[in-house]
Structures are given as structure tokens and as C-alpha cells.
């Protein structure tokens, strides 16, 4: 994960992430992913128009895993892409900004239901940037948001549609989603 989320902290905060508590095990994450896959299919009456877009970099693996879960449940292939919204951020000049990876949107999103996937939802500014970015590719019928952890502290009117875990946090804490689960800690 996590680089993005770490960077969203106060501009001057630097240092290594130090885990304090394991809040989700790998199995917890897996169960949450499968529940979210079911919820996505239920909400959209199947997988027909679905496109999963993983946010660079923390959401990319999760989007792949969600696509895999949907295939197991529904037996249908869902297009999975990636999106780097760096160029649409609103904090240029406030802190260093660099794109992490190229965007890959595998289908024309016009008329599709886009499910944006990210690991941690915090201020909502990255999602705002992603909404802008998606519209330079086409006009989706709808955009929905799936996150593994909603840690609160929204600064924009943005709300997730599918949540792995609600995790109330302090602003000075950090959330790290990785292959072994989810850790809560801080920068040391």
C-alpha cells in the first residue's frame, strides 16, 4: 500500500511506518473481499456493465482480487484496470507530487459502472482526483467506491459504497494494508 496514504499525512511528516496493532488478518481481508464482491454483484444485478479500477498503487492488488472473487461467484470475467490520479490532485505546490505508475483503462468507460478500488479511504482527495481523471476517458453510467479500510477524517463530500472495515483513527495514526492483513500504527 500505502505510499499514497502515508503521503496524505501532514506534508512535513517523514519517517518509517511502525505497526502497533494488527486490525485485520489475511483471512479477515479475504472474507471482507468476498463479501464486497457479493455486495457489488447484488447492487448491480450481476457483473454485466462492471469495470474494476484499482487506484495506484494500494488499490491495484485489491482490484485484481475482487475481480477474481467475482469470477468465482458469477463465472464471468470483469475488466480490471488501474488508475494513477496524481496529475489531477489538488495539492500541487503544497508537497512533492510524482506519478507512481501509468494508468491502464482497458475499456471505454462510457456507459459502464466503474468500481474504484483503493486500500484506505482517508480525506477523500485522492478519490476526487480519480473522479476527474476518469472523465477524461469517457462518461460512465455510474462510479462506485470500494475500500478495504475507511479510517474517517473526510475533507470532501465523498462516501464509499463498499467497505471492508470501518476503522476510527486519529489523524496522526497510519493504516497499512498489505498481503498479510491490515496494521494500525504511526510514523516513527
Amino acid at each position, binding site marked *: 500500500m500505502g505510499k499514497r496514504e502515508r503521503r496524505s499525512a501532514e506534508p*512535513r511528516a*517523514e519517517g518509517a511506518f511502525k505497526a502497533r496493532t494488527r486490525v485485520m488478518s489475511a483471512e479477515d481481508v479475504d472474507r471482507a473481499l468476498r463479501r464486497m464482491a457479493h455486495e457489488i454483484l447484488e447492487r448491480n444485478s450481476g457483473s454485466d456493465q462492471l469495470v474494476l479500477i484499482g487506484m495506484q498503487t494500494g488499490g491495484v492488488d485489491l482490484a485484481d482480487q475482487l475481480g477474481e472473487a467475482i469470477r468465482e461467484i458469477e463465472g464471468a470475467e470483469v475488466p480490471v484496470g488501474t488508475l*494513477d490520479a*496524481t*496529475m*489531477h490532485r489538488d495539492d*500541487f*505546490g*503544497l*508537497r*512533492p*507530487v*510524482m*506519478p507512481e*505508475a*501509468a*494508468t*491502464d483503462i482497458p475499456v471505454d468507460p462510457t456507459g459502464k459502472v466503474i468500481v474504484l478500488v483503493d486500500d484506505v479511504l482517508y480525506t477523500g482527495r485522492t478519490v476526487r482526483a480519480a473522479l*476527474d*481523471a476518469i*472523465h*477524461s*476517458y*469517457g462518461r460512465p453510467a455510474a462510479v462506485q467506491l470500494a475500500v478495504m479500510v475507511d479510517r474517517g477524517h473526510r475533507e470532501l463530500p465523498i462516501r464509499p459504497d463498499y467497505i471492508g472495515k470501518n476503522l476510527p483513527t486519529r489523524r496522526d495514526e497510519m493504516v497499512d494494508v498489505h498481503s498479510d492483513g491490515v496494521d494500525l500504527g504511526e510514523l516513527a
Partner: protein
Amino acid sequence: MTNDTKHLLSIADLDRDAIEQILNLTESFAEVGERPIPKVPALRGKTIAWLFYEDSTRTRLSFETAAKRLSADTMNFSVSSSSVSKGESLRDTVATIEAMGIDGVVVRHKDAGAPHRISEWVDASVINAGDGWNQHPTQTLLDLHTARTHLGDLDGRRVALVGDIKHSRVARSNVHGFTQMGAEVTLVAPRTLLPADLDDWPVEVTHDLDSVIEESDICYLLRMQLERQEQSYVPTLREFHNEWGLDSRRASKLPPHALIMHPGPMNRGVEIDGSVADLPNAVMAEQVTSGVAVRMAVLFLLLGSGLDLVDEKVAAA
């Protein structure tokens, strides 16, 4: 950019890490160019002035396209329709433009070193778009990007740089850029078209194109710069073409994976045959496309990324 985060004046100011950083960033911007709406708001509110004291088609349009795709505002300046024709000095012209509040200046000038001088006078970022015989750093970056797209890692690759080396800023930039990335550069030219100060150049030199062509991964042809030549350097253009031009016979001796590159504009029938310029491994059109993405990366790094903040932080720590 590790060495100077504010200006891009010479490719020699960049080490391998800095070049790779720009080339990696170029991939992200190449993707922006393929979108249905190829525009991002990264440089919204920034103003860039073009200061072109010399003719240019592709570099100028390429920078203009790059700036617009990043949502920057641009100010045009051309010598013939400006106060320069009334005798205004370079320094006064630059001061006037800067007084209007600009963030970047892209300079092309017939005198080597003009962009360096300007960078001493202004607070804005200065980007060298070609100064005399000296440097053309964004051309080198786009050539490296094009070459890497086809050949991958350039370590150990052989580059033949052919033609008018003496008058070519592209040659001076590219020798540094390609060797910095691990390639081996051979200059191929008649004695009269080689520079006098070759001792410091990290290159091989030959006068015989046929002796290197079969082992070249890149055959890079330079334009015969007739406008910079005050005397005759070759007996006739036809003779130059016969000895150092890439015709179809020579092109057929290149390895199958080899690239034919040219910075443009081409003199068909002089350094390159018309039929060779249209071969599938002649990548001139791709060079132009890469140029937009590379210049977006450079403009973004210098004007938008805030990377100088990183350096300050490192320095403070």
C-alpha cells in the same frame, strides 16, 4: 532531477539516475496523450514563455503541445515581430518577459550558452530548446525514450552517429546521453565535419560508414546543417551522400532489430534516401510523438512536481 531541479540547460547536468527518472515519468505522460481527452490539470495557473531566436517547427510545436496538455498558459515570442527587431538586448527582453510574471522560459538561441546566461538573470525555470552548436537536451531525452521503447536497456548497445557532427548540438547532447545510459557511440563523418575538440569525447571515430553499419543497433543520422556552414565542408552533396548517406543498400546491411533515427528536418537524398526514411525501422514519427511526452515530463518536473521541496528537506535533515 538530481543535479539541478530548477533548470534544464544541458544533458551533461544529468546523471544516469536523473535521466532514468525523467524517462520513467515519460511513460506516465505518454499514457495521457492516448486518452480521449489528453489533458491533465497539473500545471494549471503556470505560465511558460517561448523565447525562440531561431527557427523551429517540431521543437516549438512539441513544447506547445506538451504545455497545453498540462494545462499551462503559454506566451509566444518570435524575434521578427518583437522589439528585438528594434534592437532590444537579450537581457532587456528577458527582463520584460519576466516582469509579466512567468514560471518557465523555453529558450532557443543561435549562441551557445545563451540559456545559461538567462538562467542567471531570472527566477523562472529555464529550459534549453537548443543553443547554437552546444546542446539540445530534450531532443536527447526523446531519442533515449524512443530507443528504450524498442531496444529495452541501452547498456552495451552500439550507436552510430553519422554526418554533420561539427555543427550539431544534437550530436553533442546525444553523445553524452547515450554513453550515460551505457551505450557505445561511434561518430561517422568526413574529417571536415568532425569537431576539433574530440579528445574529451567518450566515443570511437571512423570515416567509413560501411565498416560499422553491420554492428550498429542504432543508425542515427544528423542533418547536413547548410545554414551553419560558412564554407564548403564537402566537395558536393552528391559525394557526401555516396560516402556517408544512408541509402537502401546500406540500410539492408543493418541488423534486423536496428533503428534508423533522425532528429529532423530531413534532407532526403543527402543524409538519408527517401525510400530509407519510409522503412518500418525508421522511427522518426515515433521520435516526434515521444517528444511531446518527454517535454511534458520535463515541464512537470521543473514547474509542477515541487521536487525542489524534497531536496530542501533532505538538505535540512
